């Protein structure tokens, strides 16, 4: 009987080492498992783990997701804000994802990154605006909405059972204190900008905006839209700028937030594309403004050559 037990399947149990070490073994370093070689870090498993350098890698990875999304740009003057985004479709057969959302008559948002996360946050923002409007008969100040959004994102960076939102939001809105453009990060930070771009190849757009931003404060609404289109063109890097690859939205004093329709956008593209050919793509700001003003009467003449007439 004893022999049976000793050699049978139960033998393992009998002969097993004790579950706890009697004397602890000396620490030989962190366990090295093969998949660890793929990731740079062993402190990136959950968002509530700090790295020794004081970083939260999960949050940084979430910001990486924003950089992978298709580009979104925003720029503002004293009275208007323009949001634009590049429409990327999964395949030629599918339609593109909606990346610009109206949150209220005075606030809109453009997203880059995980569109699903962006939709959920847009719904939250719409809810906050509606509740405030109902209670106070007054529009929610953008600055407050942005802080609420940031605090919501921060929660996800401090709960082990959550993950950060993988979406960056460009929030455009009108306030008592004027026009504002904010960027909300997955980290829970937010920044105010005169102009900004996020998503893939946004650096090209940012370079363009950095050259031009000093003129934005006093720019007219139409000039602002043209600058937005030119910034989007920078992110396309060679691909033709057509109204089908981009979406533009405007909000301003006396102008509730709305997305421009494809026809209007195409007309504006046609207008400045011609100007672009005449003077070269790297135009100086003053020259560009001057040229656009004097180029307008010339559009009529050019119209005969098959280009859509300026109808703004």
């Amino acid at each position, binding site marked *: 009987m004893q022999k049976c037990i000793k050699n049978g399947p139960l033998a393992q149990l009998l002969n097993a080492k004790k579950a706890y070490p009697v004397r602890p073994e000396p620490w030989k370093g962190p366990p090295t498992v093969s998949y660890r070689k793929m990731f740079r870090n062993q402190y990136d498993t959950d968002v509530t783990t700090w790295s020794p350098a004081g970083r939260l890698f999960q949050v940084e990875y979430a910001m990486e997701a924003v950089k992978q999304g298709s580009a979104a740009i925003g720029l503002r003057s004293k009275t208007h804000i323009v949001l634009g985004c590049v429409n990327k479709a999964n395949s030629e057969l599918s339609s593109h994802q909606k990346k610009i959302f109206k949150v209220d008559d005075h606030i809109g948002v453009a997203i880059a990154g995980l569109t699903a996360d962006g939709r959920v946050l847009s719904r939250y923002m719409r809810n906050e605006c509606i509740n405030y409007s109902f209670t106070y008969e007054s529009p929610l100040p953008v*600055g407050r909405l942005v*802080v609420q959004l940031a605090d919501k994102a921060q929660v996800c960076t401090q709960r082990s059972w959550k993950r950060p939102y993988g979406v960056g939001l460009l929030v455009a809105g009108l306030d008592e204190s004027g026009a504002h453009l904010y960027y909300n990060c997955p980290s829970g930070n937010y920044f105010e900008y005169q102009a900004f771009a996020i998503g893939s190849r946004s650096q090209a757009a940012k370079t363009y905006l950095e050259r031009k931003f000093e003129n934005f404060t006093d720019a007219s609404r139409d000039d602002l839209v043209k600058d937005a289109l030119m910034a989007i063109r920078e992110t396309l890097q060679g691909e033709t700028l057509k109204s089908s690859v981009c979406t533009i939205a405007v909000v301003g004093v006396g102008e509730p937030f709305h997305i421009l329709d494809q026809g209007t956008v195409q007309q504006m593209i046609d207008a400045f594309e011609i100007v672009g050919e005449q003077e070269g793509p790297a135009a100086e700001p003053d020259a560009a403004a001057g040229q656009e003003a004097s180029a307008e009467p010339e559009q009529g003449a050019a119209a005969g050559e098959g280009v859509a007439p300026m109808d703004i």
Partner: protein
Amino acid sequence: MNFMASKQPENSLLGPEADSQRTLYPYVTGTSVVALKYKDGILMAADMGGSYGSTLRYKNVERMKAIGKHSLLGASGEISDFQEILRYLDDLILYDNMWDDGNSLGPKEVHNYLTRVMYNRRNKFNPLWNSLVLGGIKNGQKYLGTVSMIGVNFEDDHVATGFGNHLARPILRQEWHENLSFEDGVKLLEKCMRVLLYRDRSAINKLQIAKITEEGMTISQPYSLKTYWEFSAFENPTQGAVGSW
């Protein structure tokens, strides 16, 4: 023997036990508040009486208070409910200030907030037994509104509560005009308050007038109105009166 679950949850306000937890009647009440828009902002007047039924029991009750930087609230009705409302508004203004972002709640926002509060309490059969007057000025825009205990709210160039609606409003409709000067506004309010003093038995001759402008709110020291009781109509008031029995 409990065959079925009780029809009302234990914390409902309906049923006999709950009557002690909700407002059924007012006890210490203030009478009319009258207010009008003038050139620089809003002028509001209210006397300092707190009646306990038919007894003029408390004679130093301030029924008008500043709310934040831009608004002025006057109340008639149950004084303890007015104090409760002031506590709600205190919290509201505190959180508004804590944002510290250059935005602030103006009179329109406070008025709508109060409307929501009054209406929601009325829906729960536990009203705040007040008629409120909310006036203020923000960024040059003057605002004057009122909310009743059942949540009825509206804005106008001049408003009043209680007896003021019947005695003061007709005077204001005749004599109010746009861009009254401060002196004319005060004279008009005093005229209304004098009529109320003659005819409203819960009114006392000790009133305050408050004004709110872009610079802020100021409230006068309590003072009394000159009255004249020798009108011939006041002699033998019941002579010629037709009785119903």
